[in-house]
């Protein structure tokens, strides 16, 4: 390091050195990075167990230096329920895509939220099935073209995109629910704070903490990473408004 300079940012050690398999500019990587930053800052590496889904992030366990279980497609919330019920003092989180959480795993998601399981759900909404090559997701926007909606999502045929954060925030078992985005440095910094808050609420045992991340998929959307920022910022956020949908600690603060 040059004299007279101090370190202001470096890669967290809990994010393993392995090169992440994600496409360039994919927010899955960003989210992995900031979850590990928070885990490291809170010093809970030895007390955290993650559950990875089936989707692009199936390999999340290769990058995070914490115990991990890999779940069947859609079942991460059931798996996390089993872990957290066995180890109530540990931090447990699931990391799931929209196909995983909001299509095949809807029942497990809703019921875990409704039971007020004390774990954290990181829901990565990229409005597409990334892993299987860009098919329509339950969160694909109206008119959005995917490989199975080649003329654009037709809501008369396949229904409307699901707003999961709004849905689960209605459930009494949910203690904290927020929709985030990772499209700017400011928003990434904000998201980190929310992750930390979710873990803190988990520690207090107040109920489910649910963070929906409006994400991108440059490969599936067939655009460059920088272009994907526009679709996130303009189209996605219009339908998926940011913000805290529920916070049971709001009044006590």
């Amino acid at each position, binding site marked *: 390091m040059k004299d007279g300079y101090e370190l202001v940012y470096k890669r967290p050690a809990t994010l393993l050195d392995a090169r992440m398999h994600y496409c360039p500019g994919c927010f899955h990587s960003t989210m992995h990075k900031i979850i590990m930053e928070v885990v490291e800052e809170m010093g809970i*590496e030895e007390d955290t167990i993650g559950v990875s889904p089936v989707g692009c992030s199936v390999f999340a366990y290769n990058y995070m230096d914490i115990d991990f279980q*890999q779940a069947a497609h859609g*079942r991460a919330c*059931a798996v996390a329920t*089993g*872990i957290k*019920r066995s180890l109530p003092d540990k931090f447990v989180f699931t990391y799931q895509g929209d196909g995983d959480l909001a299509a095949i795993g809807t029942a497990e998601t809703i019921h875990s939220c409704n039971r007020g399981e004390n774990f954290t759900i990181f829901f990565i909404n990229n409005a597409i099935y990334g892993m299987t090559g860009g098919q329509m997701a339950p969160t694909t926007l109206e008119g959005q073209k995917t490989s199975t909606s080649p003329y654009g999502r037709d809501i008369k045929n396949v229904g409307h995109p699901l707003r999961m954060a709004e849905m689960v925030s209605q459930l009494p078992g949910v203690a904290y629910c927020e929709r985030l985005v990772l499209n700017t440095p400011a928003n990434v910094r904000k998201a980190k704070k929310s992750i930390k808050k979710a873990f803190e609420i988990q520690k207090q045992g107040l109920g489910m903490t649910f963070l929906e991340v409006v994400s991108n998929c440059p490969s599936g959307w067939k655009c460059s990473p920088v272009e994907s920022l526009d679709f996130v910022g303009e189209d996605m956020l219009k339908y998926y408004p940011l913000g805290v949908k529920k916070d049971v600690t709001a009044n006590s603060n």
Partner: protein
Amino acid sequence: MSKKEIAFMKGNEALAEAALRAGMTGYYGYPITPQSEIMEYLTRQAPEYPNVTILQAESEVASVNMLYGAGGAGGRVMTSSSSPGYSLMQEGVSYIACAEIPSVFVNVQRGGPGLGTIQPSQGDYFQAVKGGGHGDYRVIVFAPNSVQEMVDHTILAFDLADKWRNPALILTDGAIGQMMEKIELPEHYKFRSTEDMRAEKPWATNGRKDGRKKNLLTSLNIKSEDMERKNHELQAKYAKICDEEVRYESYHLDDADIIISAYGLSSRICKKVVDIGREQGMKVGLLRPITLWPFPSKKIDELAKKENVKLFMSIEMSVGQMVEDVKLVVNGRKPVHHYGKTGGIIFTAEDVLNQIKAKI
């Protein structure tokens, strides 16, 4: 030493009590006839077991995946269901088998296919011993034929699941689940603390404490070579299980020239068949597999080699499933027949005897 505790209990409830005594740490289930008494009993006992999780899940799909999580975290875990529900669990069983998570399953069989009937059946033999889910895996399968064995096999299932890091299944049926018999209950296993479990199961995902490396439980082996290596490892384990864990009962087999094979409820009737047959001068014997997998192939092979043995008869409450495994071992050396009823219709000893007589 241990004092005997005698009780008069229903099969399903005895099984549930045995699970608690075996040190079960978590039960996850979904109601279905004819096994709902298991969760009902457990939820009734729950206040006495504050450290045991007993959770009614939203489906069998959720239950089996909760088992994955809780078993993977180091617990002694169980779920129970009946045929349609166990079908729904099969994806999870395959994942659990590959990730090698100790877990106990109970299938109190009812008649199928489809929604079928709530009457007892043995129609799920194939599903239980041949896989049920996808891929090359095996589940240790117990076939109790009495309420006492519901107790004994449950305890054994927990222990073998842990010993082999494998799913174990109690394959029983509505009749044994519902019948009441006098039983002897074992003492409780010593309570396992989180620290005990950490020591017993160093592979469990319970937080990478004290400098140990991170643990990972997965069934994903994306590279072909890794998948094949995993399959070889699993097969080597299964071969050992076949060597060490076969259990069966012989009833008048020594001089028998007619060999009945039957398990579970059918085997109770077939014991009577042997008794009546012998009164009538027939040399009938019964081979009762106690473990359906691993299957008592060596014993059957031994019998097939005997010159005096004339035929095999597999008696099942199905259109003939286990009979295929008997045939596989006998391999044409002796005739192998099947007799069975389905839909919950239970044959009598006389029915079976008449069927045997027709074959000789």
